[in-house]
């Protein structure tokens, strides 16, 4: 029911009668479900956003997977393994949500493997030390949560439901990261330096996770009107900074931003300029690990080809066997 039975895509602009009725449903906070009428642009926007989100979860397993075999204790190893497994699950919930819009899993995977699809720029940075696992949980999952909580109220039902499930699982991710940071920050001088170095490298890329500034964001307006998005990139970024800076100070760590200061009047932490050239470079494929990430995904897919083939062949044989027995 969730991907085969979709209505043929209808063509209509937003000011058509159907388009107006659709927008009225959105305004009334009704959820849109897979077989409901929707403007083509809404469908396309969602497919793009949900599949990019899914790809990000899948590629996001790689930088952390890098440390599973080298986690310092069994407790840390079990937690990291569970977290990386969760991220794989998040990718699968999201692929399933995208498929309800009429795109196949095979197409989506191919878009990722051929480099046509984008995923979050943050996962193209390397994990150089164990402290990076702490910084990723604390900052990257923290930023993801900030982005994802409003998506639980997204107008598209399957996406909103996937996000509710994901958000429930995310909070342990951030906590295990912050726990790693806490232990390092209270440890030896070397450990503290490791934690500081990780914060220095992950801080700016984490701020970039919220996407380009509102003034330059091409997709924001329509997404807000359709209630896919509820808050702008800049407002979510500010919320993240306000929540995170005191946590860093609690750890006794400094932020790599000389302009960071609390504005007493507004209560907000003001921060320096983000290097959007770097963001665009990394997104366009020229980050430190883009090639490595894509190669790892391609290899995993190719290495698994015989398993998929064998499973399908076995299933086909089972079906034939049963037909024969029934005859």
């Amino acid at each position, binding site marked *: *029911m*969730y*991907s*085969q*039975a979709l209505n043929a895509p209808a063509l209509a602009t937003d000011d058509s009668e159907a388009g107006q009725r659709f927008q009225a449903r959105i305004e009334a906070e009704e959820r849109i*479900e897979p*077989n*409901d*009428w929707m403007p083509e642009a809404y469908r396309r926007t969602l497919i793009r956003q949900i599949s990019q989100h899914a790809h990000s979860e899948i590629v996001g397993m790689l930088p952390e997977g890098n440390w599973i075999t080298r986690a310092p204790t069994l407790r840390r190893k079990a937690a990291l393994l*569970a977290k990386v*497994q*969760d991220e794989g*699950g998040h990718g*699968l*919930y999201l692929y*399933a949500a995208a*498929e309800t819009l009429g795109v*196949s*899993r*095979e197409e989506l*995977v*191919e878009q990722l*493997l*051929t480099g046509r699809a984008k995923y979050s720029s943050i996962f193209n940075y390397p994990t150089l030390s164990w402290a990076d696992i702490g910084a990723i949980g604390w900052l990257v999952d923290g930023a993801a949560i900030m982005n994802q909580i409003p998506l639980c109220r997204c107008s598209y039902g399957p996406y909103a439901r*996937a996000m509710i499930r994901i958000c429930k*699982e995310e909070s342990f991710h951030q906590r295990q990261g912050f726990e790693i940071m806490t232990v390092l920050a209270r440890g030896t001088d070397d450990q503290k330096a490791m934690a500081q170095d990780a914060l220095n490298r992950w801080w700016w890329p984490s701020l970039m996770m919220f996407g380009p500034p509102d003034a330059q964001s091409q997709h924001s307006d329509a997404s807000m009107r359709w209630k896919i998005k509820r808050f702008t990139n800049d407002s979510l970024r500010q919320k993240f900074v306000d929540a995170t800076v005191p946590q860093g100070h609690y750890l006794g760590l400094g932020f790599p931003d000389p302009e960071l200061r609390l504005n007493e009047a507004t209560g907000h932490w003001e921060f320096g300029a983000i290097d959007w050239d770097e963001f665009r470079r990394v997104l366009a494929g020229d980050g430190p690990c883009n090639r490595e990430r894509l190669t790892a995904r391609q290899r995993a897919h190719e290495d698994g080809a015989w398993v*998929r083939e064998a*499973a*399908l062949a*076995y*299933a086909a044989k*089972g079906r034939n066997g049963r037909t024969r027995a029934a005859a």
Partner: protein
Amino acid sequence: MAEPATPLWEVFIRARTGLAHRHVGSVHAADATLALQAARDVYTRRGEGLSIWVVPSDAITASDPTDKDMLFEPTASKIYRHPTFYEVPDEVDNM
């Protein structure tokens, strides 16, 4: 890269004894056994359930959203199907 499509299955989970199975999502798998395994890995990592059903997605027939009024509107006028439609004297409590 013409990858053959792996069938889609809808996953239903019984959270506790006494509750009905509830739709939680879908998985791709070559056959029912693998679908059950995938559903277990994807949807029950935190003790979400005691029992799983997997159903081939194309075996489900769904009502068409455009038939919503025809199918469900008629019940709106049949308020006499609800207990609140009937008057019970104040002196008679607990009915």
